[in-house]
């Protein structure tokens, strides 16, 4: 498979997953905000926590005075200048898909394309006027369709693996970030850790990860911070837990190179295998001891490194110097007057 194509597939996996996560995060928090009075200052700080999670507090306040239901929805959904917005992610996924249309199935392409046209024809005002929850449900529906169609129509070759790696890396990143949401959620002064508002915050974290039902199944009627963290980080079976995601990434990576379990053949496999093992041998107590925020922060930095290693290992085309290339074939020619241009691979930034 062409390196460029693999790169596109990886990013389609990431962007599509990101769309769904952002849609869910917004949907859940819009619900959560209903518990606040409209003039409650808590609403603003809660939205700030959401913006913090999506890493765009600064850019938000460059455009908006206050964070409320509508401004945040608009910024995280429809704002094209915001690279982490839903529409930006959809656009990026579609551009990647368009570039390699010949490499994915028609069903996958149409699902992305329809999502693109659906969002493109919408705007925050109309969505709020009609039914904001239906809107986010539909977005999620398109994403599930895309992921489901990938599952049922795409051959299980390299391309599929790159998409899965992208999807699970993004998911690992999102799950840990949502977990971190609680770090930024302020507690009302009259409340304390373990109080009612604290519990509501952790429920929101679980819902934001589509994990509430799965969690309650394990810990009936007992929503507690460190238990939630344990579930979202260490659960071996929950498909959005960090541990689960790392296992997927590790397996798909090794399948690409044909490397056995417990071995590595390149730096990215080494980095993923190491993190996978570390998480597998971590306990709730150790996370509590280190501090959740600190733990999450460390994991996120490693995930970023893994992203970069994947790029170096599989996608990076060697730096290309046109003049040098020409000189390789025509050693007698003198360089043109203009400076030689270098063309690195286009870097597709992660949000």
């Amino acid at each position, binding site marked *: *498979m062409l*390196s460029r194509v693999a790169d596109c597939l990886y990013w389609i996996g990431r962007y599509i997953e990101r769309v769904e996560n952002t849609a869910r995060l917004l949907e859940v928090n819009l619900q959560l905000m209903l518990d606040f009075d409209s003039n409650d200052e808590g609403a603003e700080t809660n939205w700030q926590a959401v913006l913090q999670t999506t890493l765009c507090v600064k850019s938000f306040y460059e455009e908006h005075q206050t964070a409320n239901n509508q401004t945040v929805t608009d910024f995280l959904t429809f704002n094209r200048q915001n690279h982490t917005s839903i529409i930006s992610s959809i656009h990026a996924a579609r551009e990647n898909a368009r570039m390699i*249309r010949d490499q994915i199935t028609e069903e996958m392409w149409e699902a992305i394309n329809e999502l693109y046209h659906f969002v493109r024809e919408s705007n925050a005002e109309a969505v709020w006027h009609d039914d904001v929850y239906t809107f986010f449900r539909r977005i999620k529906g398109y994403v599930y369709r895309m992921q489901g169609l990938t599952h049922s129509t795409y051959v299980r070759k*390299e391309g599929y693996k790159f998409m899965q790696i992208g999807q699970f890396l993004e998911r690992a990143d999102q799950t840990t970030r949502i977990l971190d949401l609680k770090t930024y959620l302020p507690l009302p002064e009259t409340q304390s850790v373990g109080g009612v508002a604290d519990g509501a915050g952790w429920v929101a974290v679980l819902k934001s990860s589509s994990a509430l039902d799965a969690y309650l199944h394990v810990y009936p009627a007992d929503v507690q911070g460190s238990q939630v963290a344990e579930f979202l980080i260490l659960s071996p079976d929950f498909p959005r837990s960090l541990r689960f995601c790392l296992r997927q990434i590790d397996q798909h990576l090794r399948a690409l190179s044909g490397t056995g379990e417990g071995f590595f053949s390149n730096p990215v496999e080494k980095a993923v295998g190491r993190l996978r093992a570390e998480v597998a041998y971590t306990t709730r107590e150790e996370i509590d001891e280190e501090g959740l925020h600190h733990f999450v922060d460390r994991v996120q930095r490693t995930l970023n490194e893994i992203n970069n290693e994947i790029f170096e290992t599989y996608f990076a*085309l060697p730096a290309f110097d046109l003049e040098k290339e020409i000189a*390789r074939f025509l050693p007698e020619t003198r360089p043109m007057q203009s400076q030689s241009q270098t063309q690195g691979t286009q870097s597709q930034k992660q949000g």
Partner: protein
Amino acid sequence: MDFTRYSVDQFFDEMFAGGDEPRAHYRRLFEALKNLSEEEYQAKQKAVDHAFLRQGITFTVYHDQEGTERIFPFDLIPRIIPAREWAYLEEGLIQRVTALNLFLEDLYHDQKILKDGIIPRHVVDSAEHFRPEMKGVKVPQGIYVHICGSDLIRGADGGWYVLEDNARCPSGVSYMLENRQAIKRAFPRFFPRAGVAPVANYGDELLKVLRHIAPNNNPDPTVVILTPGPYNSAYFEHCFLARQMGIEIVEGRDLIVQDDRVYMRTTRGLQRVHVIYRRLNDDFLDPCVFRRDSMLGVPGIMRAYQAGNVALANAVGTGACDDKVMYYYVPRMIKYYLDQDPILPNVETYLAGEAKDRQYILDNLDKLVVKSANEAGGYGMLMGPKATKEEIEEFRLKIIDNPRNFVAQPMISLSRVPTWSKEHGVAGRHVDLRPFILYGDKPRIVPGGLTRVALRPGSMVVNSSQGGGSKDTWVLREDDAPAEEGSAAPSQSI
């Protein structure tokens, strides 16, 4: 649908011979359309437009920031060509592409046609797309033009003419195939009874051609499509064809030349490439040989090509036949190489490079269509009868300044086909036809082509960049049922 106010005016109409009597091969469709309410028709049209958008069947519009992709407007009323007429076109086109190939081989080797004085040497020497680098290069199987899109028109007399040949990277075939899909969906009950020859095997035929030219008769070559990238207006088509053939689509940066062989960069290292269907013009193909600043091409690819280690379709240098001055000489090529009279005539053409013709052109600018020798897409044209005085004077200066670069033709009234529009209902709109000729072990044409239609009333410009649309082209498997003969006016004396 309401055809009662339909008028063929003074034009040749593909559906009606005159009055309200349809030609024999259109009768069934006409009856079917007549029984369709306007609402039903509109609903079908809307569904097709929506499907095109959903599937992303679009072309890219340059210099247009938002909505850079547009649907190529598609009109549901097909253009129908009866079997015997198609047989005639097919014969004429195959004759033409055969002569063009012989010409190119001669041009890049012995140049007998120049030595014998059939074509003046200065015409070739000044041809913008003649590539001296190709002199003496042996191309696989001796084929230069593997894919040719010749534009045909029909004049007021009903006769067919070749308007131009596109022997470099003709585009539009994906629309031919997608239009057929769309029309089948729109008329699922009518279509199966219409007796239309299928076009869906184009991708297979193209792949056969590409495999046929593999270097050293390699039985299992790696074939790829080379695209300028997603920002090219025809990118949709490049992907479409790659999918149809199940081959990789590559950009220049995916390829690298080592030891005069071409490789692509994959996740598992370099992989050899044998045949390239390139949709990139010569100019951008190899910065070592052509444009030094081109980032789209592959440094060194010409060396690999010249060494016979990679095959390119079309060959480098075929643009020499796209030159509208060279077009003038195609009937002579046919006579010279095949000793035959041309089956399909050219449009009468005057060369501004020839003193006598030039005088005629300059004296009759208000009656002629003047074209630049190497512009495509409807650019660089003067439509004399519709031009303002200023435009005419501007062209006069251009012609005097660079006569080699201009040819002139009488204004041809392109034939019309009923076409639907919201504002005017069913009305006649001008069309042309681009069939796609493939040349592998022998020339073949999938029965059909891209019918382009000028959607603006009165306009004869069919290019998509100039407000054109397209129609499905139906080539009938056999001429219409005998029972229906007699009442019909003969469609055309061929």
